[in-house]
């Protein structure tokens, strides 16, 4: 059984590499426009920031400075950065608990995010939210939610408010493959299409809902079809290629903005680390992970193109890495030295 499972997942990991072409069998192949030099460099920098930030978070967790649950985004960076490159000002983002990357993509201060992870007063939620619960009205980031699937209804509600105000915004509602089996997701799909709400449902399919592979949890595994019975268009996207993500996101956002209702993007992606820091990830082989890292890594893909096109030298890329590390180290420094919340904060922010 275990052998079979490995075989299956081995096949799946290959299929992620092929996902663009396999999706194209049934649909028109999304044309992937090449990035300009500036776009490549921006994507590289932003994805690297998430990568280094998460590596540091993992390190601080190991040192006991971060407690509780901590879900790292390493491997999935292209999804949120591709989406961020496609969005317009005012578009909102909401996600589950694997949210650090989303916050950094939405422009939240890495210091505030890291200090929240360590539970300090300078954290984005004053230390009262933790890794899974951060928000920023200013940056249109709506959390940070710990109940699998709950953010899908909430994100649909953001879209309801957008339509109510006719302000042209789109809600980018992220959830994982695991959440696609929650009932309220379909309740939300129904209302979103019924009322033509401007919401892009972004399914981050990293192949495992905690330790259970999509194949073992889902009767049908092409999750982009999950809106079919409501007439919501959907497509699979190579979530390891930031260019593919951006192209698909632009199309989906435009669909929503033009009043045609919701759109589903299934981002085929992969998380390198366990579900959370306490997950040894024994449900998949080391080979599977290694193969992903070496063949499909979203940051390496951009890096290789930059070098190939001679848009950046090794030294220049090292310099970017160095600057990113500085930002992350500064955040980590702040997060360790910032004091814990004042005890009086226990009783604040319960009611207005």
């Amino acid at each position, binding site marked *: 059984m275990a052998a079979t499972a490995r075989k299956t997942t081995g096949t799946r990991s290959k299929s992620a590499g092929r996902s663009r072409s396999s999706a194209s069998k049934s649909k028109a192949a999304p044309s992937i426009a090449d990035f300009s030099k500036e776009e490549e460099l921006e994507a590289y920098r932003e994805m690297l920031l998430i990568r280094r930030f998460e590596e540091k978070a993992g390190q601080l967790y190991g040192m006991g400075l971060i407690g509780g649950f901590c879900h790292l985004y390493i491997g999935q960076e292209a999804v949120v950065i591709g989406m961020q490159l496609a969005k317009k000002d005012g578009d*909102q983002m*909401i996600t589950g608990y694997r949210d650090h990357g989303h916050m950094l993509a939405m422009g939240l201060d890495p210091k505030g995010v890291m200090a929240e992870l360590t539970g300090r007063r300078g*954290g*984005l*939620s*004053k*230390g*009262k*939210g933790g890794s899974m*619960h*951060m*928000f*920023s*009205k200013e940056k249109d980031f*709506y*959390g*940070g*939610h*710990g*109940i699998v699937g*709950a953010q*899908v*209804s*909430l*994100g*649909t*509600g*953001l*879209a*309801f*408010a*957008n339509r*109510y105000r006719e302000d042209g915004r789109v*809600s980018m509602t992220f959830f994982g493959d695991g959440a696609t089996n929650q*009932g*309220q997701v*379909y*309740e*939300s799909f*129904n*209302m979103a299409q*019924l009322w033509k709400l401007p919401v892009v449902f972004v399914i981050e399919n990293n192949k495992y809902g905690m330790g259970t592979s999509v194949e073992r949890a889902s009767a049908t595994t092409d999750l982009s079809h999950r809106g079919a019975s409501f007439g919501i268009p959907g497509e699979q996207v190579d979530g390891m290629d930031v260019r593919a993500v951006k192209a698909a996101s632009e199309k989906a956002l435009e669909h929503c903005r033009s009043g045609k209702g919701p759109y589903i993007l299934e981002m085929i992606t992969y998380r390198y680390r366990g579900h959370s820091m306490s997950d040894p990830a024994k449900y998949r082989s080391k080979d599977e992970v290694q193969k992903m890292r070496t063949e499909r890594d979203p940051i390496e893909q951009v890096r290789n193109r930059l070098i190939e096109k001679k848009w950046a030298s090794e030294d220049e890329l090292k310099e970017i890495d160095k600057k990113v590390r500085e930002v992350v180290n500064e955040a980590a420094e702040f997060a360790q030295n910032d004091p814990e919340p004042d005890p009086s904060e226990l009783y*604040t*922010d*319960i*009611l*207005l």
Partner: protein
Amino acid sequence: MPIEILMPALSPTMEEGKLAKWVKSEGDSVTAGDVIAEIETDKATMEVEAVDEGTLGKILVAEGTDNVKVNTPIAMLLADGEDASALEGAAAKAEAPAAPEPTEAPAPSAAPAPAAPVASKPAADPDIPAGTSMVSTTVREALRDAMAEEMRRDENVYLMGEEVAEYQGAYKISQGLLEEFGPKRVVDTPITEHGFTGLAVGAAMAGLRPIVEFMTFNFAMQAIDQIINSAAKTLYMSGGQMGAPMVFRGANGAAARVGAQHSQDYAAWYAHVPGLKVVQPYSAADAKGLLKAAIRDPNPVIFLENEILYGHSFEVPDMEDFVLPIGKAKIEREGSDVTIVSWGIGMTYAVKAADELAGMGISAEIVNMRSIRPLDIDTVIESVKKTGRLVTVEEAFPVCSVSSEIGFQVQERAFDWLDAPVLRVTGKDVPMPYAANLEKLALPNVGEVIDAVKAVTYTS
């Protein structure tokens, strides 16, 4: 023998209705299934179909008659071969009819104490200026008026729920709102509580002011994760950056004969949760003033209504903007011998009990809590310091009830003033039964309140 046609009950809580129109006239022949009359309940106009064949011999209740009790004979049907002469004896019998036994609670078990009656007069509401003229209003109308006024006041307020728009509300609370505010602001949802509740919380986080109507709060259990984990906790989890300014409202508690899954009081469930406010109005004035406050409140407010109270009329002040403070109890009646604390429909038992107790010479002070969270325990403590005795009354289950909490806080803060243990009169610790007699036993009644008061006042 002519057949009596009786006023039908057309909803679980209907006790009387208006005979709006006779579709058939005397002398018309009627076959089973023919519509013979139209009856207006407080919720809807319904057609009454004949069940038997014959000729409509005599109409006993003229069209346009209000308040016709259920089971009153409204017409006589002649069977084949009978003529009008058959009506004479029967009609005479029918004219002394028989509205059904009112569903009053049983009389108190003990005979009234031979004491002089004491005064027990309704206390003035400090939130209503003296001299304000009052208008008799049903709770149903008061709730509608509150929503309409607040929707006029704030463009961000909207109503969503099942059957709230085109159907005009399953319990006719939202009557006329669609017409005035249009489908953008009065939104019919699919039957999808979990989904539309989450959606509304999201809309509130984005700055709208949703009013979510649950047809009844029983169905809100489908959505309780979104109410508690998303609506109640977000302000705290975000360090005060965003919350969910919204109202969850609808019928709560037992209606009549609707069985275990449709008869439950959720006050204690929601009152348990920091980040929520919980309101449970009794009168139409409570309903109006508190709902307006709830809609304006920047926090999520659980607003627990009661289907049986919807049709009850109360005096509501004729004020341009009547808003009551959430978290403040009202001394509904002043008294000196015992404090009876209640809220919502529990108040109906408390008020009737206080009337009877007055006849026995026991002066009861009634505290109408109005809000469950924040709980105005100060007002209860003040009253207990005066009377030394406390009885709480509610329809919910007894274990971990709001009564439990009040009793606890009173012993904590007024132990030395208590002259007797605190007693509670609650629904029984059983799922709500369907059978009429068992349901009656499961709910509290006036007799139990009187017995409890006698016990704490050591009156035999």
